[in-house]
């Protein structure tokens, strides 16, 4: 990648479900994060902007491209991100 591409922020579209979808009143959040951000950085940024996400920060798991990923996961353009609060199927 060229230095200018590296520096440009990453636009992401996050899916919400269950309690977060209800509290925020929407199914998606559009957000920009600095290039090179990890999943945990994204969650920290969200927690600063959304008190309802802050309230669940410690139990949210990240799903990237329909699979769970660690918070150290390095985000890329085009990643399909979802915020997974503790599940309760069954």
């Amino acid at each position: 990648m060229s230095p200018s591409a590296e520096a440009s922020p990453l636009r992401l579209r996050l899916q919400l479900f269950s309690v977060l979808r209800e509290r925020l009143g929407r199914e998606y959040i559009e957000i920009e994060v600095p290039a090179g951000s990890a999943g945990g950085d994204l969650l920290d940024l969200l927690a600063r902007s959304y008190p309802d996400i802050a309230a669940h920060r410690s139990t949210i798991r990240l799903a990237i491209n329909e699979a769970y990923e660690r918070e150290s996961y390095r985000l890329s353009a085009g990643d399909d991100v979802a915020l997974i609060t503790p599940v309760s199927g069954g």
Partner: protein
Amino acid sequence: MERIEHKTSAVWLCIDEQVLDVAAIAAFLPTPQVGGVDLFIGTTRRWTGTRETVLLSYECYPAMALKEMGKIAEAAIDRWKLERVVLHHRLGPVPAGEASIILGAASAHRADAFEACRFLIDTLKKEVPIWKKEHFADGTQEWVQAGG
């Protein structure tokens, strides 16, 4: 939501808003190598102590939920000697007394079927992105935040 489904000769996964069909599941599971089948059926419990539940409603992250169900089925097949595995989950409103989930494991001998079926439900409750909301008779509603 439309029914989403994945069916092979050994695994049948399904997420659907329709009533779950225990007879179809029981008919799928036996193979010529099967001697024991264990089925788990989770139902909406009306009474928890003195608190009355009218219904549970389920939502999910559909594509990922089916993938996670597939991983659980594969993990069970890796760990036990199984001939067939079924995971069906209902979505939307599930009134008291009706089934929200039916899981099954079929094996030559019963110990594998029992252990695998227990693993299927325990793991599904921790891993699959499906959430239930409890609707109480007093009109209140509440997202259930941990597997229960």
